């Protein structure tokens, strides 16, 4: 993660520029997140499945993972558990349309550091990603 002031240097208090791995089987959701994050200066990698997410994470070690909960090959909860086995410090934010409080509690217990509800709101996405990338938690 870089603290970038846009002039080649970096100082404390400068905006967070994070490398974000977006994991979602919906191309529409991936495109939306990519646009929001790249326009704010973040770097985005995207995959559409759980297995691909684990491989990409191992290779690239992104600062933050934005993880959908329902995918064809593996549930988001399983991906979250396996990411945390791969790297105890993996910083994962769950991105879901599931409004159930039980789902939120389950994700929190499995080690997710925040949840972004769908449909995505630009400000909420950026605030949560930057908070989690900066070492905090993004739970509301």
């Amino acid at each position, binding site marked *: 993660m870089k603290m970038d002031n846009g002039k080649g240097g970096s100082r404390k208090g400068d905006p967070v520029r994070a490398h974000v791995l977006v994991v979602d089987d*919906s191309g*529409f959701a991936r495109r939306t997140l990519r646009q929001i994050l790249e326009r704010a200066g973040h770097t985005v990698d995207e995959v559409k499945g759980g297995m691909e997410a684990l491989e990409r994470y191992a290779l690239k070690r992104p600062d933050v993972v934005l993880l959908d909960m*329902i*995918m*064809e090959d593996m549930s988001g909860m399983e991906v979250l558990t396996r990411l945390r086995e791969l790297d105890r410090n993996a910083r994962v934010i769950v991105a879901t349309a*599931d*409004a*159930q409080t039980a789902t939120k509690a389950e994700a929190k217990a499995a080690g997710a550091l925040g949840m972004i509800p769908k*449909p995505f709101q630009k400000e909420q996405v950026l605030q949560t990603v930057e908070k989690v990338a900066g070492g905090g938690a993004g739970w509301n």
Partner: protein
Amino acid sequence: MSDLTGQRIVLTAPQIELYSIDLVKEALNKMLKGEVASVQQIFSGPVSGHALLLVSREGADILTSLLIDEKTAAVEDRAARREALAEVGNIVLQGSMGVCGNLLEVHVSFSVPSLALETVDDLLNSITIQQRELQFALLVRTRFELLKSQVSGYLVVILGITSFSTLLDELEKWEKRQIG
């Protein structure tokens, strides 16, 4: 949906009716003619069944054009439109089912959304052939309208009798909790 399309949505008060699958077909055929675009999600848990978002074919075209910018639409037209509609269905279905789940304190899990363009009869036949216990079903109808675009759609939840009975028990418990 309002957030996604930038349009004000008007929802009608939900009507809850118990139908056999054949009569559900009849009721839906009166409201939606010809091919309909459907997003379907199977949900499972103490209450399980099928949740569907149904929009007329023309309505689906209008809805997707509101969701996709022209540049994207020109490049990846068909796939992008399908993905956008599936995502809207996913958001609307999980959002509404999730609110009900929270209210009743019943947690359900969802399958990956599937999108289809077919007649109401074909759609419901494919559901009941896969799961024969759904011969008798509960239908929850809510109509939504995008004010400026005149798109109407319906939310349908199909439950088997066992899940319907569990749902009634949970509603009774919820009512008791409300009274205290």
